[in-house]
């Protein structure tokens, strides 16, 4: 038996919610999603635990039209320190999310942050095109990330509303 196997990015419900929210608040219909981050591969069902990360997040900066806006959220506490998130939006679509600043207070958590943050970027970008509805299993770091991201997005909305 051959089973189509796909590697998936994580999309937490919470972050997917934010991506949905940004599309909703910034109005305009979202562009078609051509670049979904779901590179294919093959494998067997018995290898379920070895799903590897795919490369290449969706949402390249050249995708879609509309003006580009950027905002950086404030430092927000998370479980291992503080984090500030920078978001770039083109039209109604998030085209990039990066970490503007991160301060880790517990040395051993550097590994956790280094691992989780690229993922969270993928989550935000892929939430707009992923073909799964949600993810089971929490990412603890995401709370501070979400808070800072939300603040950055609110800042963008305020600027958009103000002209």
């Amino acid at each position, binding site marked *: 038996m051959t089973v189509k196997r796909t590697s998936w990015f994580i999309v937490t419900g919470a972050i997917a919610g934010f991506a949905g929210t940004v599309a909703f608040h910034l109005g305009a219909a979202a562009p078609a999603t051509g670049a979904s981050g779901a590179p294919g591969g093959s494998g067997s069902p018995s290898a379920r635990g070895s799903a590897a*990360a795919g490369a290449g997040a969706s949402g390249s900066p050249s995708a879609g039209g509309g003006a580009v806006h950027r905002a950086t959220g404030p430092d927000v506490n998370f479980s291992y320190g503080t984090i500030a998130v920078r978001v770039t939006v083109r039209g109604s679509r998030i085209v990039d999310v990066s970490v503007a600043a991160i301060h880790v207070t517990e040395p051993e958590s550097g590994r956790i942050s280094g691992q989780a943050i690229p993922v969270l970027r993928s989550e935000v970008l892929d939430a707009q095109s992923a073909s*799964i509805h949600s993810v089971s299993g929490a990412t603890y770091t995401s709370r501070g990330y979400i808070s800072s991201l939300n603040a950055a997005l609110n800042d963008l909305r305020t600027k958009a509303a103000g002209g």
Partner: protein
Amino acid sequence: MTALATGITHTEEVMGTVISFTAAPGGLPAAAVRAAIAAACQGLHRADEVFSTWIAGSPVSRLRRGEVTVAELPPEVAAEVAEVLDLCQRAKAASRGWFDPWAMPGGLDPTGLVKGWAVERAANSLRRAGVAAALVNGGGDLTAFGSPAPEKPGQAGQPGLPGQPGLPWRVGIRHPWRADALACVVNVRAAIATSASYERGAHLIDPATGLPVTAAASASVTGPSLAIADALATALAVGGDDALAAIGETDGYEGYLIRADGSEVDTGGMEFTN
């Protein structure tokens, strides 16, 4: 355009995590959906106030210290506590005692079931308000009703046909060691909970010894009730293969275990999509 982007979404920080709502209104006005979500969030905050073991004055904290009995609590609170403890009793039996809120250090601790119960109640309140379809994710433990939106622009989710289950929701299970990958994707028709120690450290307690354990890298349970699934996922993470066998004998529930050595086993009925 995905179901997530076509629906109405909201996130709420409560119970030490982020709860996200995605709702497809169907025929309901968007304002009514938002009002239903707001009411559901009030219920989540109230559940936190009643059941938090971190709030010293919460009813459950007072129960833990033996200052009050359930019967001495205000009637509305007592009814909620009794409902949760009844579910705890069911989950304890279904897990062969691997989930046991009465065997925790420091006294009664229903935390392993409460979040699932509260999220399930939030989803039920949306359904009663007339929302056609919704998914509520409580920090990785989630429940959904109705059907997810088809992958076409402009179409929202739909309620399941009477007497028939809705289309399944595709849910990724986070990979225990690779934060940038999923272990697998499963079709979920009601609820799924995943318990693991990868983010919060060893927070799982073996009821038999009272000591922290890590028998599993990741433990997921699907089933009709998120309250029960949440508790059984906790049990599975602690009890490993023995708990999995117990879950396999529980009607409507399925388990998927990634052991500490990376090997995997499941109860046979979980709908893996890949």
